[in-house]
């Protein structure tokens, strides 16, 4: 089990999907907020890979090969980290 400090540092290194860079692949690490169920239903699950395709008022992402448009409010609730290539 990793040290609590390591955990904390790890969670600090996470960014929200709305902040993430367009055109890159990310690993979904955590969902937090009231829209979690809505997000999970459309395939945003922890450990899955997501590619951000476009920024804007509504973002466009690709999860498991499906394109999904989601509001930036929802994207704020998806915490991601850069996917290891």
């Amino acid at each position: 089990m990793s040290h609590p400090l390591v955990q904390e540092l790890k969670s600090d290194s996470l960014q929200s999907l709305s902040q993430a860079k367009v055109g890159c692949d990310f690993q979904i690490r955590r969902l937090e907020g009231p829209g979690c169920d809505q997000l999970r239903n459309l395939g945003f699950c922890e450990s899955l890979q997501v590619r951000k395709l476009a920024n804007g008022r509504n973002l466009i992402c690709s999860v498991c090969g499906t394109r999904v448009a989601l509001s930036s409010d929802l994207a704020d609730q998806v915490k991601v980290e850069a996917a290891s290539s």
Partner: protein
Amino acid sequence: METSNELIALAGNPNAGKTTLFNALTGSAAKVGNYAGVTVSVKHGEMRNSHGKALDLIDLPGTYSLSGGSPDQQIARGVLLGENDKIAKPDLVVCVLDASNLERHLQIALEVIELEIPVVVALNMIDQAEKTGLRLDPVKLSEELGVPVVPIQADKGKGIIELKQALGHPFPPTPEASWEKGDEASRRAFGLQVAELAARRPEAHTSTLSDKLDRVLLHPVLGWVCFIGIMFALFWSIFSFASIPMGWIESLQDWASGTVENTMAEGDLRDLLTQGIIGGVGSVIIFLPQIILLFFFIGLMESSGYMARAAFLMDGFMAKVGLSGKAFLPLLSSYACAIPGVMAARTIDSPKERLVTIFVAPWMSCSARLPVYLLLVPMLLGGSEGGAKQALIFLSIYVLGTLTAFVVARILRGKLGPDDIQSHFLLELPPYRLPQWKYILRHVLDRAWAFLRNAGTVILGIMILLWAATTYPKLDSDDPGEVLSHSIVGRVSVAIEPIVKPMGFDGRTGTAILTSFAAREVFVGSMAQLFHVNEADDDAETRNSIREILAAQTWPDGRKMFSPAAVISLLIFYIYALQCLPTTAVVARETGSWKWGIGQFIFMTVFAGLASLLVYQVAKLFGLS
């Protein structure tokens, strides 16, 4: 549903192809699209399994999970849990999953397996999944889930026989969940693990044709150019291209009328046939090409996958009036007919946004108003049809209705306050697909037939009644004006003239408006009948179009009756009035209360009357009367 047959339900995520499979299994032609939420109610059909045994089949609206969601998703949940009063709990569920996206689609299958009903999984759109480089293992999937798994391509009819064999008889045994039942986290983890085993994704992200198309169609600038171009093509085809087939119908009508006149002896029956039936119903049927084109375009947008993109583009704009991009489809459909528009609002998650969308939907000028606009607009332009000016006036009519709807939506949304549970914009953008021509054409033909049936029943009935009301009680006089004023309609006209005169109309126009409360398009036929009588003694005039007859009408003081002020006032009335009883009934059903249906009817009718009065009085001040 009372039946002795066993019941099979099709369940799955929205846009997984359930209705396409339903059509393939039952041989019916229910409406399909490439857009989440095309099916908003349960469809029933009958199919036969591989032994020839009859089975009842129901197609449920798509749902992501068995908890919560928009009203259409709750319907699916109610049926699957056996909580629906009208539909029995299914004996077997076919879970239709999109093979390209097992990670997500498997979740609903796992939830259904937990219900302890026999389950068969249909892995749909297998061809598209394999095209993207996905390697699927249905055998492995079947082993892990403990249920039969059949790869299918519902749109091509592939795998249907295998699916029927998999249903078997008796049905496959009830599966057992190999995860912790009722625990969402455990179920999700199991789903992801199975998806990883049964579907291997290519490592690199390959750019598909849909990706390339989206780069243009969802581009902040180019996307809007394309959107406006598509909308322009839609409305141009309705108002310009449609005039060609409309001319054919007109010729056919002239021929029918001429034949009856030449072959029948003069009398009441000939008048009823030529004026009441051919003239009245014909003046409505002529708009069939426009209605066909409108439904065809909407079908094309839904089937190709563009509708979701349009909703995405419109979201920012709709947010300004308190709605979301999801309200775009119901509102666009309402340009064709408010009834499917109101029903399509079921896909909106937020109950208050849904209510507001339903409330303003009838202000999107529906196709039934087209006959009225097409009759009146050229009267503002000296009788000539076509041209840029007419297009501009048409555009203004649509813009006026839409803008007023948005203003009212904004006010109403503010009054209703925020939702108890905040909903966010989240929409799947399905891959572009070639339109399913067969189903689009079937759907368009269904709508055209519904329009013709309406013309042949309601409108025909009203035309016959109106003809009788303008003819009886009979007066032994040669002056058609006297005959009309002696008739029932003549007396009604006198009674309502004081009410409609401040809006710029005489009693006959007022009567035509009254008749059109049953269906708007009746107005044209009613005007044709009501104003025809005065001109009957002049053969040359009688052959002219109804528009010329109207233009020649004068008030007793010699002023033109259909002055620009009166025509504009009439147009305004038709833009705003809710003259469609079926819409009121559907609104009452969808909102679950007659209060909304009747409230909307009264509000829109009073609004239309006041707007019409105001416009006429102001136009009069500017000397337009």
